[in-house]
């Protein structure tokens, strides 16, 4: 179902949702949101379980690292205020602090994934152009660059090889191949823009794929942030 939502509406809904999550300090809300995100992903046709697992691993890792930081390096005032706030936290307030921090990160990540894994790049850009007034030039520049990704990474490898063959070893974060790449990108942007403009590209054009906004899109856009507010009220 999340696949079919208009990308602009989805962006706004999830963006506002994520900001609201920023002012949420209840682990229960965090967990529920993470679950909702997980549900979105499960029902999407654009991602598989296999793929999902590969993304979840690093997320759990980072989430764990936040847990330990929150637990071992908590701030005193925060614990104090939390102990007063949440009377239920009779157990270990430091542990709770860790749980809150790590579930918060988990929730952010699940919402994030349910955007990036379920949105088609062409649709997103078309929708931004049609609904969010993104300049035509910007939209198509993004699509063009995305479509050249594999060529760019090939070139990057080639420029590294070219250096090695000259007996100039390439270390990680070496700027030499990066410099060569920058030169190329300056040249490419020139050629590409000439090619596109000489094919008649400008702001005045039709678009074959029309992205529509339907009532359910609006419902998602407004409903999702409202749901977070609701959850917050419920648990506080």
């Amino acid at each position, binding site marked *: 179902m999340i696949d079919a939502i208009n990308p602009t509406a989805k962006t706004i809904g*999830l*963006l506002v949702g*994520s900001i609201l999550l920023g002012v949420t*300090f209840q682990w229960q809300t965090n967990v529920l949101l993470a679950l909702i995100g997980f549900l979105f992903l499960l029902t999407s046709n654009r991602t598989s379980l296999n793929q999902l697992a590969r*993304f979840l691993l*690093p*997320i759990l*890792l*980072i989430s*764990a*690292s*936040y847990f*330990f*930081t*929150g637990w*071992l390096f*908590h*701030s005193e*005032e*925060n614990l104090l205020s939390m102990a007063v706030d949440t009377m239920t936290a009779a157990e270990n307030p430091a542990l709770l602090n860790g749980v*809150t*921090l790590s579930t*918060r*990160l988990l929730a*952010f990540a699940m*919402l*994030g994934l*349910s*955007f*990036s894994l379920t*949105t088609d*790049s062409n649709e*997103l850009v078309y929708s931004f152009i049609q609904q969010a007034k993104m300049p035509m*030039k*910007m939209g*198509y*520049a*993004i699509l063009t*660059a*995305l479509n*050249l*990704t594999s060529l*760019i990474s090939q070139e*990057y490898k080639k420029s590294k090889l070219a250096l090695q063959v000259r007996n100039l070893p390439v270390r*990680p974060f070496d*700027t030499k191949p*990066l*410099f060569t790449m*920058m*030169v190329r*990108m*300056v*040249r*490419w*942007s*020139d050629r*590409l*823009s000439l090619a*596109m403009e000489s094919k008649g*590209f400008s702001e005045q054009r039709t678009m074959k794929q029309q992205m529509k906004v339907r009532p359910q899109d609006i419902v998602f856009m407004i409903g999702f942030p409202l749901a977070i507010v609701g959850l917050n009220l419920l648990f506080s």
Partner: protein
Amino acid sequence: MNREKLTLRDYLLMALISVVFGVFYLLAVYAGTALSTLLTPFGLGVLGYEPFYGVWFMAAIITTYLIRKPVVGIITEVIAALIEVMLGNMFGVIVMLSAFIQGLGVELPFAFTKYEKYSYKVTMTAAVSATVVTFLWTGFRSNYLAMDWRIVAAIFVIRLLSSLFFTGYLSKRICDKLDEAGILTYLNPGGANE
């Protein structure tokens, strides 16, 4: 200040450079994750990404230098974020907001010079302002108030150093070299921006 509208070529340059840095970012993400894993048992995992934080500002500062028009830094970061999201960044749409803030941080000092000065002084200032602005933002996002002040201070200092190195120094060096290589005539016909 160059008030001309952004051209298709400008947008393409921003997008292409974003993709190049996408590859580079991935390297930083791997390095950061590895470091985080190492530090997690000590509770210092959150520091793992900080040494590489400056890498995230590089695209913005480089395109600002190359194009020399207002809002280029912000737009580049947003494009970079969109591209990252499309290629599968796990933090999704929130990185677009982070990107906006990063771009803003990088660009502020250039705006104060009316996009006319590109010296080390300005790039180093950009590194500092990017650190401060993003620190406030990630502080809000990860709730630094819930962490020990010492670890928060460590985050700030490491990020600042990383930013000074990658953003203030390395990016400026690459750009100067591009200028020296004589290929920027393509971007500034007539050398109007010298």
